[in-house]
């Protein structure tokens, strides 16, 4: 009770041997804490998409995670190119992913909209040539 679990992860750029490891680790922690399968699923979807975006669009970055009894807060930040038009990027189907990334099944342009759909609070700070920070909160009782 009242305990907060804090974790930090590195997200290497363009390394698909470890892409998704931060999300995978967080999923395990939530499951061990007895969080409902529904909340675990929403968290996994939102965090995985943000993690993959940092890998393929953001030149890698890091994840900071705080879990208490009611919610999980996830901050994924990178120092990549930033997003020029966030409203456009949020649209389903919009993607700038190159063919080499699409060949692996990424680049559907559904990542940001999936994050929105599966999180309760979402705040994205982005600046051209500075980077992008995605702040996601999922409440466990929803």
């Amino acid at each position, binding site marked *: 009770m009242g305990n907060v679990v804090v974790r930090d992860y590195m997200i290497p750029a363009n390394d698909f041997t470890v892409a998704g490891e931060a999300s995978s680790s967080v999923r395990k922690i939530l499951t061990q804490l007895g969080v409902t399968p529904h909340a675990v699923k929403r968290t*996994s979807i939102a965090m995985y998409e943000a993690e993959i975006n940092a890998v393929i669009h953001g030149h890698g970055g890091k994840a900071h995670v705080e879990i208490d009894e009611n919610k999980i807060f996830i901050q994924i930040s990178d120092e990549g190119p930033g997003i020029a038009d966030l409203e456009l990027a949020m649209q389903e189907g919009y993607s700038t992913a190159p063919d080499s990334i699409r060949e692996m*099944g990424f680049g559907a342009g559904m990542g940001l909209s999936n994050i929105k759909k599966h999180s309760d609070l979402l705040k994205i700070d982005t600046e051209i040539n500075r980077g992008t920070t995605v702040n996601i909160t999922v409440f466990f009782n929803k």
Partner: protein
Amino acid sequence: MTVGELAEKLGLEIMSCGSRALNTAVTGVYSCDLISHAMAKLNPGNVWITVHTNLNVAAVASLAEASCVLVPENIEISGQTLERAEEKEVIFLSGGKSAARFCYEILSLLESPS
């Protein structure tokens, strides 16, 4: 129906994590080659049919709690992917038919009164 029973009935080869096949239940099937769709739409216990065989498939199958990944049309699965699948406890199945054919057969098995 378990993944092991499914493999036997459809003549599929178990490529990784065979030890889990007999106690992993199949709840349904989902077929899509877009990672974002699979991540969002796969329900726990679903068979995920995809032509992708890269490392990310093992990661997504594990995160989405798919019962297994079924690779159709005898598409080759690299040793690196199968190694990752063992680590992540993801069962990979392989078979010769098309994704559509496998969807039909799996749904028929799941919906037939046993």
